[in-house]
Structures are given as structure tokens and as C-alpha cells.
């Protein structure tokens, strides 16, 4: 049983981790550029999922479902993702404009507070407009379960993992090898002098938020496919944990954020079977409910031994207070 059992859990961990990774990527984006905790990011993820829901429903009603379908499911999905990414990017731009740009000179913590507050406003607006009930995310593509030697994998899981790895690579490329990426990193270090080398600072900041939010939208939709119950607070605890991943990876490190995201998912999922195995081996009786306790103790220990995260540089940006 053990091999199957482990493989199955590994696959579960991969899917779960890919969401942390995707959201952590968005965090890391904004974070590495403005050195800000964008605490609204989790809620932008929520907004992205809802926008995705709206777009998907719209497309479904336009192009039909079932036998009357004009477009195949996968095309609808791709369209939904692209349109929602585009729309959510604007949400990000607005959030930057309203909540962050006025605070560029302020202590970072103040901006963190604004982020938190914008998050609350997004959640509340959602309840105001949609009434707070859970909504179901439509299943654009047929779910197919493959049984590979007793290990169950769905087509969606595979897709989700591939998409997040793809996005991570693309983003890494953008950040480390393009002028835009350099400008973003430069801004993280010392935003004041960025204009002095001819870089339009506000454009870069807006771009960053736009990309980060678009990523959140993609994550939101994939999330909707995997866990089709949306609620206004879905971004909160998820957001905080992705935030942990973003920093754990090492601030400003896109790869790091992504890997840490996978790792966090891995730790969270694998503690359950690990406890099972321990119990069986040593005939103990530890509950799998200790998951958070164990997972975050691991995070804590990692940070104690790697004080700059997994892939973080040791340079210290000037803390603004």
C-alpha cells in the first residue's frame, strides 16, 4: 500500500502546492517591486475567481453548453482565463492607484494596513453585491480521472500543475532577463532614483500590480476548477499562507516564491500521511489535525536556519519607517 499511498499524496501535494505557488508568485511580484506586503493580494485572488465565474457564465450562455455547444470546453477555459486575467489586471491597477501610490513615501507597514483594508473592502463589496452565499464555479472541461496503477490523477490536476510551472518560468524570464524585470528590481531597491535613469516609475508600478493581479486571476480560475465553491473570504487564509510562501522563498525571488509555494503545499499535505506512517510504525496515536502545527513549525525552523529565506539575497533594502 505504501508506495501507492505515497504517490497519491505526492500528486495531491503537487496540485495543492501549485495554488500556493501561483498566488505566492503574484505576491512576490508586487512584493519584489515595491517592497510592500500587498495584503490585498489574497482578496484580488478572490475577485479574480469571481470575475472568472462571471466570464465563464457569460461565455457559456453565449456559446452554449452540452450538445448545443459552439465552442469546445478547453477553448472556453482558455478564453475565460485570458479575459479574466485582463479584467483583473485592471482591478490591480486600481488598487495600486488608490491604495499604494499615495503611500509610496510612507512606512511600509502603513501600506500593509491599506492593503488589509482594501482587502476587507473587496470582501465586503462582494457580500453587498452577491449576497455572501457560496457560488459554484462552472466546470468548463469534463473532469477525467485516470487510474495509473492505483494512483488517481485527474486531467485538471495535471493541467493546473503544468500551467503554474509554465507561468513561473515565464515570469522568471521576465524578471531576470528583460529591461522591465530589471526596472522592477531596481524599483524594489530604491524607487526614488528610478526616474533618473529614464524609467517611468508609475508605469512600472502599475504594470507590476497588473501582472500580479492577472496571475491571481489565473490562480482563481484554476482554483475554481479544482475546488468549485467560491466564497468571499476564500482569499483570506489562502492569502496569508501564500504570503508565507512568498517570503519563505526569499523576497524578490520569483523562483523561490514558486518553489516555496510548492514546498508549503507539500508540507501541508504530506504531514497527514507522515503522521499516519509514524503512527503505524511506532504505534502512536497522533491526530492528523496537528497538520498546521507541524507545517508551520517546519516553516519556522527553516527560517531560523536560513534567515533570508530559501533563495533570498542577503542584501537589506532600506527599511522605510
Amino acid at each position: 500500500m505504501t508506495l501507492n499511498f505515497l504517490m497519491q499524496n505526492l500528486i495531491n501535494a503537487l496540485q495543492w502546492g501549485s495554488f500556493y505557488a501561483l498566488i505566492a508568485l503574484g505576491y512576490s511580484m508586487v512584493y519584489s517591486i515595491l517592497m510592500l506586503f500587498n495584503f490585498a493580494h489574497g482578496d484580488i485572488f478572490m475577485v479574480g475567481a469571481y470575475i472568472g465565474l462571471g466570464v465563464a457564465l457569460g461565455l457559456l450562455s453565449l456559446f452554449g453548453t452540452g450538445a448545443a455547444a459552439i465552442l469546445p470546453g478547453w477553448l472556453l477555459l482558455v478564453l475565460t482565463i485570458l479575459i479574466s486575467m485582463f479584467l483583473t489586471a485592471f482591478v490591480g491597477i486600481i488598487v495600486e492607484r488608490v491604495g499604494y501610490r499615495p503611500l509610496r513615501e510612507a512606512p511600509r507597514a502603513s501600506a500593509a494596513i491599506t492593503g488589509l483594508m482594501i482587502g476587507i473592502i473587496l470582501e465586503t463589496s462582494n457580500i453587498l453585491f452577491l449576497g455572501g452565499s457560496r457560488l459554484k464555479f462552472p466546470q468548463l472541461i469534463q473532469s477525467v480521472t485516470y487510474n495509473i496503477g492505483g494512483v488517481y490523477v485527474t486531467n485538471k490536476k495535471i493541467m493546473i500543475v503544468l500551467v503554474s510551472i509554465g507561468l513561473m518560468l515565464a515570469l522568471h524570464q521576465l524578471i531576470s532577463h528583460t529591461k522591465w524585470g530589471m526596472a522592477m528590481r531596481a524599483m524594489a531597491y530604491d524607487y526614488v532614483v528610478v526616474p533618473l535613469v529614464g524609467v517611468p516609475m508609475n508605469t512600472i508600478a502599475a504594470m507590476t500590480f497588473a501582472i500580479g493581479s492577472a496571475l491571481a486571476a489565473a490562480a482563481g480560475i484554476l482554483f475554481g476548477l479544482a475546488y468549485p465553491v467560491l466564497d468571499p473570504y476564500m482569499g483570506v487564509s489562502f492569502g496569508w499562507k501564500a504570503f508565507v510562501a512568498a517570503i519563505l522563498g526569499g523576497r524578490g525571488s520569483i523562483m523561490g516564491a514558486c518553489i516555496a509555494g510548492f514546498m508549503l503545499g507539500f508540507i501541508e499535505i504530506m504531514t497527514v500521511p507522515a503522521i499516519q506512517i509514524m503512527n503505524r510504525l511506532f504505534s502512536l496515536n497522533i491526530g492528523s489535525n496537528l497538520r498546521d502545527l507541524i507545517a508551520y513549525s517546519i516553516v519556522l525552523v527553516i527560517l531560523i536556519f536560513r534567515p533570508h529565506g530559501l533563495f533570498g539575497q542577503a542584501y537589506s533594502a532600506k527599511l522605510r519607517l
Partner: protein
Amino acid sequence: AIDADAADTIKIGFNIPLTGDNPDVGASSKNSAEMYLKKKPKIEVGGKSYDLTFIFDDNEYKAESAVKVSTKLITEEGVLGIIGPQSSSQAVPAGDVANNYATPMISPWSTNPNTTLDRPYVFRGCFLDPFQGPVSANFATDELSAKKAAVIYDIAADYPKGLAEFFKAAFEGIHGPGSVVAFESFTTGDKDFSAQMTNIMMSGADVVFVPQYYSEVPLIVRAAKEMGWTKPILGSDSWGSGDLMGLCGDDCKGYYFSTHYAAAGAKGETKAFIDEYTATYGKTPDDVAALTWDALGLMIQAIKNTGGLSGDIKADRTKVKDALASIQNFPGITGGMTFTADGDPKKCAVVVKINDAGQFEFFKSVCPK
């Protein structure tokens, strides 16, 4: 006693979650209450006519807030009695406040024993988990012929955790220790249940018991299916609220859960309530709505039974409590109710099956001995 009208008004407070993690529950309660008010804006007590006033206060689905709201309703708004909170995590602490201030409180939906225990002023409108647990265990044994069961529940929430434990005790009572082969937990807000379901799959259980809220059920059911689970799933009364079928779709069809009443195929008063509610709000009333309706009915009945109010709110509250305690066979839409000494009604549980049309179809009724 200040306002000229105040003497002719009876105020009832609602301590419900309008924001926070479960606004649906608050909305259903509020809907139900408003419907009641529209229908019966005045009541006769001891030959005198009173206006009913309802005060809805938001407990944000937080224990801390529930305490504040109870205090506010009692000391500030001067309510005669309180309906709510719905969830045990709020009802347990809020019950303490109500009891300390000697104000009658009915929690429509809290199934945790501690809510009313040693609190003469606190009542509830539903059965208790020590009852529901065995009902489910028996059902799994008798109807689903299960010999080994698995449970997946939220360790961080009062209700699922309590019920899971009662189920486990009852099931192991029948099939012997170790017959609950997987007892898997998660934490509020979790969305991924694949690790737990993997374990359950490997455990060889014949049935999974899922005492979870309607918002988590679809995800759990789905995770089960994705892991190749084909055996039955059994739920609890929390399934019957909110928009379970809207969220779960086909995935949930064919499963069973124990609950307070079955909307599909209801008759009489219950049907009248369901029809009116559906006409007003465009959706079938869920359990909270029905239970809130009954709790309100109980409260009003008790007020009437006092035979007349003195105008001294403190004395009146005690009178209402006494009247509540001695109510016999109140004809609620979710069943007849008589309170035990603890303030718990003896009520039957209903087991419903989710049929292929997605309706909650009456399957069986289990009454306490």
C-alpha cells in the same frame, strides 16, 4: 418605560451572523423572522395587544462578538428574549450571557450539549448531537450495511468535531472498537481534502460520515470521487442549509443525511411555510430558516402563555422563561416540541436522501425513545 409606545411593544433580539464566514445563515434567519413579522405584526398577551419589534444584530460569526451582541440586546435594547446564535461556537458563550442576565434565549440550531447545560434561561429548537450521532451510526449500520466507517470533520469547529465524536462512539459501540477505520480531520477554511480522502480510500471503510457545512460538502464529495470513491456518503443536519445542491450539483445525488425536516414532500403547516417562504424569497427554506421560524414561534407562544406582562422587563423575562420551560407539545413545522429540564426539545430526526432531481426526499424518521 420611557417612550409612550414602549409599553405596547415587545422586542425580540436576534443574535445572528450577518457578516463573517457564514452570512447565509444570518440571511436565512433574518428572512424567516421578517416573514413572521409581516404575517403577525401584533400579538395579544393577557388581553392586551402589543406590537412586535425585532432587532437584528450581527455577531460576525465570532464568539467575542456574540457576547457583545447579547449584552447589547439585553442591557441596551431591552429585549424580552433572544433568538440565536445559530452556531454552537457562538451559542455557547452567548448562552452564558443570557443566563447571567436572566433573559430567555432560544438557539434554533445549536446542537452542542453545552449550549443549554445548567442554564435555565437557555433553550434550543433542535435535537442534540448525542442524539444525532447514534441516529447516523444506526442508519449507516442498518440501511447502508456498513461494518467499517470513516469520518472526515473540521477539528476547529465546535459542531463537526462534537458530532464526529458522537458518531464514532456510537458506531464503535455497535461494531466494536476500531471499526471507525479512519477519523480524519482538517481545519476551518481548508479547501483541499485529497490527503484525508486518500487515507480514507486506503482504510477500506464502507461509508464516510461527513458532519460538515454545505459549503465544504461539495469539495469533500468531489475529492472523494476524484480518489475513486464509489461507496455511500452520509451527512448531518448542516447539509440541509444554504444552497447545497446549487454548489454540489450531480456530485451529491444519491447520498443521505440526517436533519430536522424534509422540505420535499412536506405537508400541512410545514408545507404552508415552505410555499410562503419560497414565494417571498425565491428559494426553498433551509433548516435554519425553518428552525428559526419555530424558535420564534416558541418564544411568542411562551410570551402569550405568561398570561400578561407586567411592564417590568426583568420580571417579565423570568415569566417568559418559566412559560417556555413548561410548554407542552408545541406544534412546530419541524416537529412537536416539549423541553426537557435542560431546555432541550425531544425531537425526531429525519433522514433524507438526495434524489436524482436534487431534492431532499424524506427517507426515514428516527425518534428518541
